[in-house]
Every structure is written in structure tokens, then in C-alpha cells.
């Protein structure tokens, strides 16, 4: 990794240059929640000043730029008794500015599943190759717990990452594209003092976390607690709406749907985001449902997130952003569920 330092005014020039030449998305306030707090989302921007770069976190994650809610996988054209299939993988290049570490780490986890697996997804790969990512660090919110999962720092999966040093940004450059673009503006090599400031900033962020979730040994713990009554308690609250999966940076389960156009001449095969909390997720032909109860499905989401699957080396895929907890209509959040599980098993242990 190459490190550089840039002043904030030069950085603005740099971003405006990118915006002028490419389709660019950045954080913008779209609404207010019930308490009057702003809600941010990534939206298309046309100048640096349109963005709210000192935002908290976006409501949805950046995942949907790579795994859209609906995307067409292939089209069929019918002609007489015959049909022809056509596939489209190409996408246009774009820039996304202001990603948080949880977004970037979420993408790094999705890369493992969609690019490094046995069948790499060309749709995901095309989007990933053609997106330029600029990340930014931030001070954690009250309920962020990414530090517990070690996802408050970024390692890879971005093009450029900016750490705030007050009047300047400390840049971590992780791609040749970013390196070349930065030749357009004035940057300096980091001095010893800059490095000290950068580390101080890192430590400051690390200390500001107010929420902690104990995740050591969680994978085997979840295997052991598979039949715990705690799941019923939280399962009874769950509404099975699937909101958590839609805002999550790493939830990637999907469904496939095919539909014929009204003209009856073409049809399309679409992929749509799905959630393992929805009732027919595991229902097979003949009507047998492998996970008929709400608690089974809620448990499975936690099982997947904190135990991990063979596909991603059985590592937890949760990044600790707590977007699901904020979005949940029934007030279920991962911190409470995991703490509940841990507490319950502590009660059962004989006192030593």
C-alpha cells in the first residue's frame, strides 16, 4: 500500500474532477426519521458540495450497487417453436465516494463468495471491476460494534481510503487507477508527524466504541446452542419481513424469477434479493418446508452471519454495522440476541 497526504481543498478539486468525467455516487440526506435525525443514502451527485461527507452511515449499504434488488440475468426471444438466449454482463464505470469501513469490509466478504468461489459470478465481477471506491473513516455511532469483529479498519477491497487529519486527509492508495488519478492534484509524502497523527486518529476511533459484542468462539457456540429456547423468544418477535437482509452489507441470498413480456415474444430471467426470514425460503416442490417456524429462520440468519459457511471459510460474515438492528421493525438487534445467548449458557454452568 502507498500512503499520501492531501489537503482538503485539493481533495475537493480531485473529487470534482472525478465527478466531471464519470457517473458518481455519494452520501446525501434523503429524509428524516421519526426523531428528526437525518437519513442518508448513496445517490448520484453532480458536484462535491452536494455530498454530505461528514454523514454518519447510510441507511442501506453499498451492497445494492453490486447486487441490485432486481437484475436481469438473461433474456429469451421466442420465434415459432424456437428460442434464443442472450446474456449481458457489461456495465458502465462509476465512482462511489464516502464509503465507510463497514461497507468496504462487506464488499471484501462478498468478493470471497462471488469471485473466489467455485463459480465466480460474472455479473458481480463486472460491476466490481468497473466501480471506483473511495472510502472514509468516521467516528462510530452509539450502536456500531464493528470493532468487536475487527471490521473498523480496512485492509483491501477499495481503491482509495481517506483518514481525516483535521485540515488534511491521509490517503491509503490500493490501486493503480487511484495512483494515476492522484497525479492530477498536489499530494505530499506523509511526514513522521502525519504518521503519528494517523495512528492517533486510528486509536481514537478504536476507543470511541460504546457497544461491544463478545464474538470469541461464537462459531462453535452457535453449534452448541442450536436448540436453545432463546431462539423461540426472539423468533416470536420476528415479523419475517426481510428488512434486515435488505439493508445488510453482506446478506446475499437471492431468488430467480422468470416472466414473459405482454407481447409474448420475449421473456426475462431476473435475480432478486431475498431473505432467509421469509416463509417460503426453503420450501420445496410438494410443499415440504425445511424451516417452517419463525425461530428456525431467525436462527438461520444468525447462524449464517456469525458462524459462516464453508463457502467463506466458516468465518463470520457480519461486519458489525448494526444496520439490521436500526431497521428492524420488531426491535431485534444482534447485540441483544448474542448477549442473551451467552448469558443463558452462563446461568447453566455450575459455579466454579
Amino acid at each position, binding site marked *: 500500500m502507498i500512503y499520501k497526504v492531501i489537503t482538503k481543498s485539493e481533495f475537493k478539486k480531485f473529487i470534482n474532477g*472525478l465527478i*466531471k*468525467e*464519470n457517473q458518481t455516487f455519494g452520501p446525501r440526506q434523503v429524509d428524516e426519521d421519526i426523531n428528526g435525525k437525518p437519513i442518508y443514502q448513496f445517490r448520484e451527485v453532480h458536484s462535491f458540495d452536494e455530498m454530505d461527507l461528514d454523514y454518519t452511515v447510510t441507511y442501506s449499504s453499498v451492497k445494492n450497487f453490486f447486487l441490485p434488488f432486481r437484475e436481469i440475468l*438473461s433474456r*429469451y426471444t*421466442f420465434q415459432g*417453436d*424456437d428460442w434464443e*438466449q442472450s*446474456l449481458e*454482463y*457489461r456495465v*458502465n*464505470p*462509476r*465512482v462511489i465516494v464516502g464509503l465507510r469501513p463497514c461497507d468496504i469490509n462487506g464488499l471484501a466478504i462478498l468478493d470471497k*463468495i*462471488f469471485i*473466489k*468461489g*467455485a*463459480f*465466480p*459470478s*460474472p455479473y458481480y*465481477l*463486472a460491476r466490481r*471491476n*468497473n466501480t*471506483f471506491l473511495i472510502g472514509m473513516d468516521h467516528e462510530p455511532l452509539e450502536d456500531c460494534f464493528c470493532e468487536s469483529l475487527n471490521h473498523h479498519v480496512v485492509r483491501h477491497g477499495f481503491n482509495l481510503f481517506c483518514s481525516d487529519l483535521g485540515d488534511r486527509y491521509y490517503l491509503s492508495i490500493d490501486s493503480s487507477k487511484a495512483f494515476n*488519478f492522484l497525479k*492530477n492534484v498536489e499530494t505530499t509524502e506523509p511526514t513522521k508527524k502525519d504518521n503519528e497523527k494517523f495512528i492517533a486518529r486510528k486509536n481514537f476511533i478504536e476507543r470511541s466504541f460504546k457497544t461491544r459484542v463478545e464474538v470469541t468462539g461464537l462459531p462453535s457456540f452457535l*453449534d452448541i446452542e442450536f436448540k436453545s429456547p432463546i431462539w423461540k423468544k426472539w423468533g416470536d418477535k420476528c415479523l419475517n419481513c426481510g428488512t434486515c437482509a435488505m439493508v445488510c452489507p453482506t446478506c446475499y*441470498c*437471492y*431468488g*430467480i424469477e*422468470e*416472466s414473459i413480456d405482454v407481447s409474448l415474444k420475449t*421473456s426475462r*430471467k431476473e435475480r432478486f434479493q*431475498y431473505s*432467509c426470514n421469509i416463509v417460503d*425460503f*426453503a*420450501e420445496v*416442490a*410438494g410443499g415440504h418446508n*425445511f424451516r417452517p417456524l419463525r425461530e*428456525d429462520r431467525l436462527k*438461520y440468519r444468525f*447462524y*449464517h452471519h456469525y*458462524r*459462516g*459457511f*464453508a*463457502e467463506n471459510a*466458516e468465518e463470520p460474515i457480519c461486519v458489525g454495522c448494526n444496520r439490521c438492528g436500526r431497521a428492524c421493525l420488531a426491535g431485534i438487534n444482534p447485540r441483544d440476541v448474542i448477549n442473551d445467548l451467552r448469558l443463558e449458557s452462563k446461568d447453566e454452568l455450575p459455579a466454579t
Partner: protein
Amino acid sequence: MNYRLLKQDINLKPFMTMPPQFNRKTIVMRTDKVYKCEIINIVELTGLEKLFHLKILDPVEREIFSFRPGQFIMLEVPGFGEVPISVSSSSNNREFIELCIRKSGRTTNMLHRAKKGAKVGIRGPFGTSFPMEEMAGNNVLLIAGGLGLAPLRAPLYWVIERRDEYRDVAVLYGTKEPEQMLFTYQYEEWEKVNHVKLLTIVEKADKDWKGRTGLITELFEEINIDPDNTYVIVCGPPVMFKFVCNHLDSLGIPMNRMFVSLERRMHCGMGKCCRCMVGSTFTCVDGPVFDYWSVLNLQEAI
């Protein structure tokens, strides 16, 4: 001053020119491209099940496509949907594949209305297979319930084609009613020509039924199983697995010689959609063939 991002195209290889290499950097394939097939024959087996013979139209693609017993393919009916179906023909047959399909949903209902000459698509093959080479020199016991006979036909063909490599081969087959029995026209051939011991049983007999009545586990009383050199393959409804495998376990057959083929909902076949997850693994990539230990080891498998 140049800030323009250049469009980066990815280089795609045709689908499945070679099997995926696990744990290594894998090639990016045109994973959603289907092989176009023609339905060259339809055999009506029962009121609900039909056997479809599919021939891949493109000769190059036909050459590429090969599968092993136990693997499945994704069958696409354009405009209606995609369903995972296990191949139930001989893996030596490179001309056409046979799929036994029950009418049970939107896609399969449509498929049952299709006539000879209709064109459908297939992707695959996907999943793991039965270790047929490892079984050579041993007794083979195939246990099927209901539609479970369809995926077992592929290993059965494998054994029949190399009959001298295997010792005693037996098939235990149970259904609810006599008219639900599949492939009845082949029973005589299997027994008399191929020396396969075939025992059938039904739960509810009708007036024409002269065979046994009861549950499939009752068939165990009629055969001798040598636990030291018998390999077992089980396929059927989830409730059957538990009883059959428990019984086999009590006979002393090692867990790594008992294989089951699991059924789950699937949308992609490639370990991406998560619909088929069992415990912490995917039925489509690490299954559908599991040995009994893996099944016990996974949460909620049977």
C-alpha cells in the same frame, strides 16, 4: 488532466469446459448460459411422473457435457422457471440424458404440457457424485422411496454396465401406492438379465397388488446385509432417511459407506443463492450426495 475511468470487460470462458477447481483461483465462466436441448422422447411413467429424453442440440456442447451418477442439472423452461433435477440415465450415454420429473409446480406443470420436439435449456452438471470406483468389489445396496428411484437409476446403470466389478447388488424400493411405482417396465430386465435383487413394497395395497405391504424398513428382514463389505445409497423423502439410516447404523455399516442424496430448494446451483443451505454448507456444491456422517454432523439435515 485525466479522470476518466476506462470500461473494463471481463473475459468469459464458455460454461463448464472443465469441472470447477475448488480452493483454487477459478475461471470466470458464462454461468447462466444454457445448453439448448430438444425433447426427443417422452415416456409416461405414472399419472404424475414423466420421463423426458433430452438431446443437446449443439454437437460441441454435447461433447463437453458429461456427468457422474448422483449429480444434478438445472433445467430451464424459458419464460417459466428453472428447476434442479437429478439425472437418471447412464453416464455412458453421451447421446441424450433422461430426466424423471414429477408434476408439482409452475415449471414442471408447463414441462408436462410440452410435446416431443420442444426445446428447453439445461445448465450443469452440478454437485457431488457417488464414489462408484470406491464401491467396486463390494456389495451395493440401493434403497429408494417414491421418486427417490430416479436419482438412483444413474448409479444402478453404472453398476449394471460394469456388473462383473461388483458383487451382490440389491434394490429396495417402496412407494405409497402400487400405481406410483416408477420404471415398472424395467424390473424384469434388472432381475433376470442384470442379476439385481429387487424387492418392492407398498404402504397401501389395491386389489390388483400381489406383493408385500408395509413400510420400507420391513424389507430388511428379507435380505442379508454383510456390514463389512456393503455400500449403501439411500434416496427418498426426509422421513425415510431417519428410519433407514438408523437401522443400517445398528447393523454396523460404517457411516462413510452410507450415502444419501438430499433434496433442497435451489435457485442457482452454484453456491450463491443460499436457498439450499443445510447447516453450514450448500447442497448444490458440497452435496447433494453426502455420506451419513456429514449428514449427522450438519444441523437440520434430516
